[in-house]
């Protein structure tokens, strides 16, 4: 595979969401696409207790030369992909900087404290404003709604990966995605995933 230059080395991606949204799957798919391109990739993840309704985060470091730490230093994300809107804000608070790009699925998953009325969940406009102010560019999608239309809300994660590919900041595309998905998934699920990817890509057009 050709090893096209990165915009920055290492290029740092945070994929965030709530346990059960397919965060790990999304980070694996994206990382595998990049390994196929010839890059050295580190994914930093923790799973276990945090998956039970907690915030989850994958750190992806992409480099043409070296292995980087599984934790991105504070304030050093280049791209934030949020499967849940307030998680985008949480991650930007720690890893944001004036050059970061953000991609946000706007479907909220309410924390228990919000459900019970102990805490407030910010309005969508407030979230958009905060993300836009803390990012160089930002893009908001209704990935979960689209995924439900496709028949399975979990596909929201793949819609987001389709959107990442279309942003043009990483050398990944539909062909690479198809190759990775065909290798790692039962054939019966390939078609839905390809459609989800296409929906995500179209949303960033």
């Amino acid at each position, binding site marked *: 595979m050709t090893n096209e230059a990165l915009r920055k080395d290492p290029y740092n991606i945070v994929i965030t969401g*709530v346990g059960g949204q397919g965060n790990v799957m999304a980070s*694996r*798919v994206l*990382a*595998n696409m990049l*390994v196929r391109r010839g890059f*050295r*990739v*580190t*994914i*930093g*993840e*923790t*799973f*276990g*207790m*945090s998956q*039970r*309704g*907690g*915030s989850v985060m994958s750190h992806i470091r992409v480099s043409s030369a070296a*292995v*980087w*730490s*599984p*934790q*991105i*230093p*504070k304030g050093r994300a280049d791209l934030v992909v949020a499967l849940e809107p*307030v*998680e985008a*804000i*949480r991650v*930007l*608070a720690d890893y*944001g*900087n*004036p050059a970061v790009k953000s991609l946000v699925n706007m*479907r909220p*998953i*309410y*924390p*228990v*404290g919000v*459900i*019970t*009325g102990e*805490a407030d*969940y*910010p309005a969508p406009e*407030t*979230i958009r404003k*905060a993300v836009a*102010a*803390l990012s160089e560019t930002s893009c908001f999608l209704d990935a*979960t709604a689209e995924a*439900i239309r496709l028949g399975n*809300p979990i596909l929201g994660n793949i819609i987001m990966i389709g959107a990442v590919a279309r942003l043009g900041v990483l050398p990944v595309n539909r062909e690479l995605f198809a190759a990775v998905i065909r*290798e*790692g998934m039962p054939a019966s699920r390939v078609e839905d995933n390809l459609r989800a990817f296409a929906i995500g890509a179209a949303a960033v057009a």
Partner: protein
Amino acid sequence: MSMDRGQREGDEVLLMGNEAIARGALEAGVQVAAGYPGTPSSEIIETLSRFAETGKLYVEWSTNEKVAMETAAAASFAGLRSLCVMKQNGVNVASDFLLHLAGSGTRAGMVLVTCDDPGALSSVNEGESRHFARLMEIPLLEPADFQEAKEMTRWAFTLSEEIRSIVMVRSVTRMSHASGNVILGALPPAARKAEFLCDGAVSDPERGPMISAPVIEKHRLQQEKIRKAAAIFEKSPFNAYSGPERPELLIITSSACRLYSLEAVSLLEAEDRVGILKLGTTWPLPPALLKRVLSTTEKILIVEEVLPFLEEQVKILAAEQVREIGVKTFYGKNDGILPMAGELNPDLVMAAVGRILGIDPPVLSSAYREKLRAFAGLAPRREQTFCPGCPHRASFWSIREALQRDGRGGFVCGDIGCYAMASLFPAAGFYTAKTLHAMGSGTGLASGFGKLGSFGMDQPVIAVCGDSTFYHAAIPALINAVHQNANIIFIALDNNGTAMTGFQSHPGIDVNAMGDASPMVDIAALCGAIGAKVVVGDPFALQETRETLNRLMEGQQGVKVLILKQSCALSPEKKGTKRYLMQVDDTLCRGDACGCNRLCTRIFRCPGLLWNREKKKAQIDEVICAGCGVCAGICPAEAIRCEEAAKS
């Protein structure tokens, strides 16, 4: 996308640290692997189980870590390379056997992999297994990246055979659960045949009995092995120095901390001032190598997580050689420049290096920091809780109701598993769970509390215990409670699998780690056989469960067992399916006007049930709700409706 049989030697693939360790064991020709599930170690045995094959590789989930180590040791004694795998506190469980195994020695290569969890990302302790290597006098290896995790595990078997001792490979969460590129090596073709040669003299390591006596002789022999390991480590490629010839500051580090150190130095642009000695063989330390590197500078920073394990040993070596290498200034844990609790990251290491060298770490512009301040606190906290449809929520709900009705201030002794959340996040267990310690300790504590009646304690005592934890460590405690006639209710929260760590099999399930049919050990039958009174129920039947509990509380002295059986919401048979379609009837939910004070959302707290602030009524979130139907039973106005979902 992860490790599979289709991959070939020379392929460069993305592997999780744990998969890289498993691959290393396969490349070494491991034939028996045993472990007990525990985050962050579980994927090693899971990966190996996919490669299991009769006569080539046997893989098991043992009942606990001690049994896993014994299983692996038997294979080593019989001439097969073997592996045992556990998380940090699992080594505590296995340590009694480990002490004696270090004494008896091993035959075919035997490796212990432990995965520690600095920062307790998925543990209720920050235990350190590194100290066991020193305590038990066995060699310790620590990989610092993914490729090395594979190479080191493979080599650990060779070392084990060379010195006839078990070898410990220690990983951490940030290695085990991180992923990176790994170039695969060849898998060995031939499998060895098992035979335990045991007709020789006690002193014969090849054919003698495997025992730790005569103790003093065997102990000396073991120390001889450690000296031999130190000599081998002097030339090990797993130890490497990078940096200037005479650095202003020398960092000595190992494991994931090496990557943090490299990043910290790069962020400070201090590559020409700082050297990094990365150690892969961390016990015993190779003294000549240390002496050589320590001679190059006066300032030394030791970067490691949690306790100052490396730091203390480096200091001992430096003190012994002070005449030759000169006086040093040490930085690390003891002087407080790095924290002694919690995990490290590149930022903490950068701050420490910056302070020593007088470099200010780079910061974000003040305009950006201003914006961060403006939006601070916008994201509401996300507290962990049981999954929607989790049987534990229903069980604890009934426990709460029963304890309230009883009114004597009863409480629950918690244990390890998803249901530990009841102790960790009080609202998740409806403020009933009040203790949480080691695997099985809830039952042991309850047994003790249950004997305090003669001192005037009349609070009902309940122990909860998951199915996997039951087999692991609760059985001796439960037998104790029966024998001592302790007054307790023991609730087995049987959700049909080791849910917390990803549904590994255990003795209560009819398949083993390799997917083969295997005999089941029935919890109810076992409890009955030891003389406890046993009731079996469904936690989703709220009223019945509550009534049973109150009956047991009022009943006679002794151990009463209630087994609450209902599969985990994420179990393969349930995941993604809904038994019921739920709906809140707006005409019946009287919202804030109802005297229930929002019982459903404020107290019950299932994430599938929301409070609609505009309507001021409860509402089902159809994406999150798992359709278990339980909440229908808690609404006093019967506003939550459930309708049997059509089977697809």
